[in-house]
């Protein structure tokens, strides 16, 4: 199984653009409270699980709460996304960055990991990895190499403010909806807020998501005999992945460690060769980053089915 642990990537950074206009919302979107904390604080917290270097690009006069980030200001306000990406990439320490706007409450780390992994894909290197959701490019949920900075600078100088000009110029990997759906079936990653109603709806969804989820592991064959039970209920954090579930399973059922599960030095648990997972009796899953949902059943069975 592909079960790489996700850790800080020192070569990569994250950029949050917080300087966009909030005219219809009537107040700065970065500061909209979620669970008594401004949204931007949540974003920084979440992204810091993957990126040690986070740059926030604010409007020239924007004030933000104190955050463990590098704060930069647009030199010229309102040059659209290209301006924000440009100022952000200039300030990063890494060679590439995941760039996002500040009004997206439902970033999915597993999907961001996937985007980052696509910088090198099928033996080719790309300068930009950008998802296409509902037939629209998503420039503010994309990964850029720092070396595109001169191109952006030139675009700003010539007032070509649409990101697509960049994609036509540098090697760009467009990520399809089918790929996105593997991590984020509903495209929550791209859900942003422009009005009060959007905010209220997002808040309601936030509350359902941040609650811990219950899943059930169903054990078959040798796994069942080893654990002496057919079923193990698990309570997992809201954003738990398959890898997280296996880690919790290892602590709940230590008997499985060694025979069915193996834990590495970092405490990260994966399935041993000879075993596989299926979710809800339907999809066989290999990717440790696969997100689990409340009520999911995770079947652990021999990879040698049939016979």
């Amino acid at each position, binding site marked *: 199984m592909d079960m790489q642990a996700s850790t800080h990537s020192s070569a990569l950074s994250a950029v949050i653009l917080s300087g966009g206009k909030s005219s219809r919302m009537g107040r700065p979107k970065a500061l909209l409270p979620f669970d008594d904390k401004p949204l931007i604080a949540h974003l920084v917290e979440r992204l810091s699980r993957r990126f040690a270097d986070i740059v926030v690009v604010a409007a020239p006069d924007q004030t933000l709460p104190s955050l463990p980030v590098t704060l930069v200001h647009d030199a010229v306000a309102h040059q659209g996304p290209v301006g924000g990406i440009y100022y952000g990439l200039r300030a990063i320490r890494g060679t590439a960055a995941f760039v996002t706007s500040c009004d997206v409450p439902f970033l999915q780390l597993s999907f961001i990991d996937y985007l980052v992994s696509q910088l090198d894909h099928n033996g080719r290197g790309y300068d930009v990895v950008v998802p296409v959701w509902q037939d629209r490019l998503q420039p503010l949920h994309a990964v850029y190499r720092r070396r595109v900075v001169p191109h952006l600078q030139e675009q700003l100088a010539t007032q070509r403010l649409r990101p697509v000009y960049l994609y036509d110029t540098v090697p760009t990997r467009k990520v399809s909806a089918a790929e996105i759906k593997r991590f984020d079936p509903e495209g929550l990653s791209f859900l942003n807020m422009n009005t009060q109603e959007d905010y209220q709806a997002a808040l309601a969804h936030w509350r359902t998501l941040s609650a811990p989820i219950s899943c059930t592991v*169903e054990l078959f064959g040798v796994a069942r005999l080893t654990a002496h039970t057919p079923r193990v209920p698990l309570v997992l954090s809201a954003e738990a992945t398959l890898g997280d579930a296996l880690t919790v399973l290892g602590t709940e059922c230590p008997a499985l460690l060694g025979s069915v599960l193996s834990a590495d030095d970092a405490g990260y648990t994966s399935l041993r060769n000879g075993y596989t997972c299926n979710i*809800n009796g339907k*999809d066989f899953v290999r990717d440790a980053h696969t997100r689990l949902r409340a009520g999911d059943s995770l079947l652990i069975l021999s990879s040698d089915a049939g016979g």
Partner: protein
Amino acid sequence: MYGFHGRLLRIDLTTQSYTWQDIEASRLRAVLGGVGLGASLLYEYAPPRVEPFSADNPLIFTSAPLVGTGLTTTAKYAVVTKSPLTGFIADSLSSSFFALELKRVGADALVITGAAEHPTYLLITDTGVEFRTAAHLAGLSAQETEERIRYAVRTAQGAEVRVAAIGRAGENLVRFATLSNEGRHAGRGGVGAVFGAKKLKAVALRGQRRVAVADTEAVEKIAITLRERSVGPHTAKYREIGTVANLAVFDRLGSLPTYNFQNTPFAQAEALSGESFITNGFSQTHGCAACTIRCERLFQSLSGEAQRLEYETLFALGPLCGIEEPDAVLRAARLCDQHGLDTISTGGTLAWAAECADKGLWPELHATGLSFGNAEAMLALIPDIAHRRGVGAVLAEGSRRAATHIGAEAESFAMQVKGMELPGYEPRSLKTMALGLAVSPRGACHNRSGAYEADFSGQVDRLQADAGRGALVAASEDFSAVLDSLIVCKFLRKCFDDFYVEAAQLMSAVTGWDYTAANLMRVGERINTLKKLFNMREGWRPEDDWLPARLLTEPLSSGVVQGVSLTPDELRLMIQSYYAARGWNEEGLVREEKKRELGL
């Protein structure tokens, strides 16, 4: 010659004579042993359109290059003939000491033709063949026959023999009768009935001829590696539970056929699961000779007898017939073994009959009380099939022929392909397997390909059909053909890092001939094409590669696969993709160029 003897033993039961004949090295090289050599000899020795029960239908035993090399899981032999159940090729494998003894007899194959006038058994040694009376063995089970013959030879000649025999079902020409040795069975396709038609009760073997391998050291090295891998995690399921482990998983995935393929899942799957058998009762582990995996499990019935149980037996005599009690399944399995009946075809035919009874289509069934879930009625009918008594005489013909006896409606739910009853894989929720079952040369078979592996791995969407499946099924069939001709047990298949490369090294070391991975893939293709050519000669038509109407008209209606269906168009698309992958024409016929390309 290394790895092979380079000769076969022809035996004529009519004239009670035998001859040794050479087999050309080029043929052995091209088709190996096992099912490959069996298919090649069948094509040669069966007169075109031979009637399966006629004296002319050859009964062919083949050994294989890896047999006797000490490699784990290689104590196997194939028995090949024209099937009385399907009218096409029957190639069954079985294993253990009989297989090792066959190799020691000094022939790569036995080709038995003719028919004896009276019940006979053969005592074959490396010096010749004795035709002995089997009158005193009539009606005995294969196991009793084996014991009697072994005892008789031991006391008279002070020698140990290994015996394969048929039971009552074979003697009575039940079209799905088995051949058994040491509790293992060449199960599918009715090989036992061809024995019966020849009045041949058993074959006893004793020999001392050894075959050298070309590079002993290299073979030993590979043997050690495979032995080590064979006890690793890939075989844990087989070692700890056996194939019965499939039942609970299949049930959960909506792939366990129940009630004559009317639906899935099964309400009592938990009680019938392999895990429950292991946890709730006494079980023993057994294995074939020269095997380090030892997948065989014997479970104790309530009456205290130990009964061998495989997933297919459990499925066919359990959920397929609506039987919920583990003990009833064990008793049914025991009856099948005692009488020499293939458990899958027995369960499949009984399930079909139970549906006929439910629908009131066959009044004579009423007296038997047969219905889904009625274990006692089912248990009573099994010996009736073997004896061809009452309705048992009709059931002994298998579900396809029995259905023609009842009428068109009953034919639509006779769950067979080419006359062979389907194994325990629900085709609607395993689309690659659906194709594999439709096109397999020997009928609905889960052994001559592992098409289900693609479905169970997530490599494809198992619930959807597409044109990529043809290539997968062809590749899987070729892989199985090589496994079955080397011969290596299919449960060792995951223990190779790169099967063809390692198998080529192994074959080169055993035979001294240069094999490459590409050669061996070709061998697989050649064997499958040869089987198809045999079937074509025997009257194969495109409609023979098709699935029963039920699977193509009724969607699954519950569980995780609720609403999943398979349409005729989807099946047609997959079948066309299979013919294309094989390089056959659109009607599924082998082209002349292909024959030339494969040297056929």
